[in-house]
């Protein structure tokens, strides 16, 4: 594992969140604990905290998104920040402006935090290398590389439902090759010490040397799901047939689609997760998606608290939270 020094300031505090790779375990625990303390905010009558009052957050989404952008927007607003949503894919970049020029222009408007999504791996790193010290970057998905806030909200969800990671076997099923979510989940799970992390997919959707990330690869879903505590299914883009990666939707669903029958290979109390948006009948059967073991909707709810925690920690420093003294919990 390589540490990404760009994410920390000279005092070792988290300055940007670009990837989970190389984050110390205690940093992840601090984010999850802080998120825990924010959960109750969403259940209150007045869902606002003044932690980021006067700060400007720009949601800079070069690639479209509904869930991620909306939960970031809600999270920032609950922390009292001013939020602006931009979708430059449709404006300046098509006029030939470079990525860095777009960012520099927005920075000149005194933005404090950029939440960035871009189709190219490494886009958030590039931006973080070129912003002044007081500007923060959160990666909301870069190409196939990372989606750290999704990875962290998934860890938060797993911890809430299944407890300590050391005993957990987790299987990630689907298009690992193209998935930034899978990469972030793998780094988070290996850092948190999960007993076993498995990836399950046809060979064409598994990246080369995936074992080097600390996972075991399976092409047979039956052995891949055997005795697991957590199943994460990934979205399969319907156009993957075109690159000769899979033969047909039908064959994919038959072999890898999560059905009640396949669920039976896992532990009886295993939970089912999906980062969304789902293709029902392709990677997941409705009976599983809507079944009692699905935590897919709680994942979305938790996403708000986790993103609040990340923004508060990055911009507010350690001890950020609604009432840090009482509500912080240790791992």
């Amino acid at each position, binding site marked *: 594992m*390589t540490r*990404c020094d*760009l994410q920390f300031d000279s005092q070792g505090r988290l300055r940007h969140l*670009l*990837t989970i*790779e190389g984050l110390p375990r205690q940093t992840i625990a601090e984010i999850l604990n802080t998120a825990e303390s924010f959960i109750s905010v969403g259940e209150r009558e007045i869902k606002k905290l003044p932690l980021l009052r006067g700060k400007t957050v720009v949601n800079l989404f070069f690639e479209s998104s509904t869930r991620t952008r909306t939960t970031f927007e809600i999270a920032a607003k609950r922390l009292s920040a001013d939020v602006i949503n931009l979708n430059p894919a449709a404006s300046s970049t098509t006029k030939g402006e*470079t*990525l*860095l020029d777009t960012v520099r222009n927005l920075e000149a408007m005194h933005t404090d935090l950029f939440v960035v999504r*871009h189709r*190219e*791996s*490494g*886009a958030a*790193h*590039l931006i973080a290398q*070129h912003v002044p010290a007081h500007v923060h970057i959160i990666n909301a998905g*870069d*190409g*196939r*590389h*990372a989606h750290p806030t999704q990875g962290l909200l998934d860890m938060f969800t797993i911890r809430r439902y299944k407890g300590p990671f050391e005993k957990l076997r987790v299987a990630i099923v689907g298009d690992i090759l193209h998935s*930034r979510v899978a*990469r972030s989940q793998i780094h988070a799970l290996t850092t948190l010490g999960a007993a076993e992390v498995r990836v399950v997919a046809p060979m064409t959707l598994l*990246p*080369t*040397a*995936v074992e*080097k*990330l600390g996972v075991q690869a399976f092409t047979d879903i039956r052995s891949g799901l055997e005795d697991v505590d957590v199943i994460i299914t990934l979205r399969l883009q319907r156009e993957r047939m075109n690159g000769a990666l899979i033969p047909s939707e039908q064959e994919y669903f038959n072999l890898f689609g999560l059905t009640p029958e396949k669920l039976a290979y896992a532990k009886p109390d295993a939970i089912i997760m999906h980062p969304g948006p789902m293709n029902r009948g392709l990677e997941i059967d409705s009976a599983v998606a809507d079944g009692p073991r699905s935590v897919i909707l709680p994942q979305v709810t938790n996403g708000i608290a986790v993103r609040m925690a990340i923004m508060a920690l990055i911009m507010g420093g350690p001890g950020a939270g609604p009432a840090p003294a009482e509500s912080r919990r240790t791992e």
Partner: protein
Amino acid sequence: MRVQIAGGHVIDPANGIDGQQDLFISEQGFIAGVGTAPDGFRAEQTVDARGKLVFPGLVDLRARLREPGLEYKATMESETRAAVRAGITTLCCPPDTYPVIDTPAMAQMIQQRAWRFGLAFVHPLGALTQGLQGKLLTDMAALDEAGCVGFSNALEPVTDTLVMRRAMEYAAGFGLTVFLHPNDPWLRNGGCVHEGEVSTRLGLPGIPEAAETAGVARDLALVEQTGAHAHFCQLSSARAVAMVAAAQERGLDVSADVTAHHLHLTEHDIGFFNTQCHVLPPLRADHDRGALRQALASGVISAICSDHQPHEPDAKLAPFAESEPGISGLETLLPLTLRLVDQGLLGLVEAVALLTSKPARILGIDAGHLGVGATADLCIVDPEARWVLSVDRFTSRGHNSPFLGWEFHGAVTHTFVGGKLVFEAR
């Protein structure tokens, strides 16, 4: 001007010279004597080379000068100046200029422009197919006549195997060398890094080793079929090296080169998206680097080149896959090669041969040696100088290098081209 280079340690692999000798350069710019002065020689200028190494001027098999077409990146003047500062006196430029070198006029224009600046000699490669489009052959005989030292489709693949066969056959008939960049475009599939550990970690589209080996296998089959005289450019993988070695063993007339950066870096140097390490073919795994180094030592690979590609800063200020590939490599060619000597991989004479006589032989030109009567192209190197590569040190207009911050051993103090002092360190 008659020049005497006095007291230097001359290394001239082509002539088996490795020892302290004086060199004498004639009025006309040729080597007039080695060791002993020709009768009646009176030097007008004497260069004190005591404690220094004297090499033939280096021959770089591949350097993009960006002219014509991309003068915002660099010019022929800026890059030939950078070359002589780095001890390189002969450059070969690939045909992927704008416009492409597929007419005698273009080939002559490039040589004449270089000649006008009087710095390094520039030899063009002609395009193997018109416009590098892989469809129609170029007028190879006329291009040869106009000074092209070989033919290449540069990084553009010739996907039609029949066209490749005809191109090789046609070239073979006139004894022309074909320079090949083996690469299967379908397997490359838009990749930008080696398909392996790092592509998986960073989620970058990978170029599998098979993109290179499938290309080598196809081209070797065609070389065998046509009897073409072929040179493989910048091999990057252990398996490709083994295939070329096996072909040489069978007696096939094939040579190969490697870039200096593939001998020192691997995929891991990309770290978190360092675009300075974005090169084609990509930096590969540790064992590939090891095999390339071994192939140098064993002679399977007979030249080290810079694959110089100067860029303006913006070319690298983009997300990795969107950044432009290439390294400004002229000024690190000799230092990176000397580092291989320091590391014990190569002897000094061998290292100098890989930068002088051997690449000259691949190009079929009379350069890269200091025999009496040869053009007096040479460089003098202070082996004790230690320096760190920084942006201000570049003479090239391109400052794009993954070696910024590296400490090097050995620096060029003088360069002569055609007997004329074209660079002297201050």
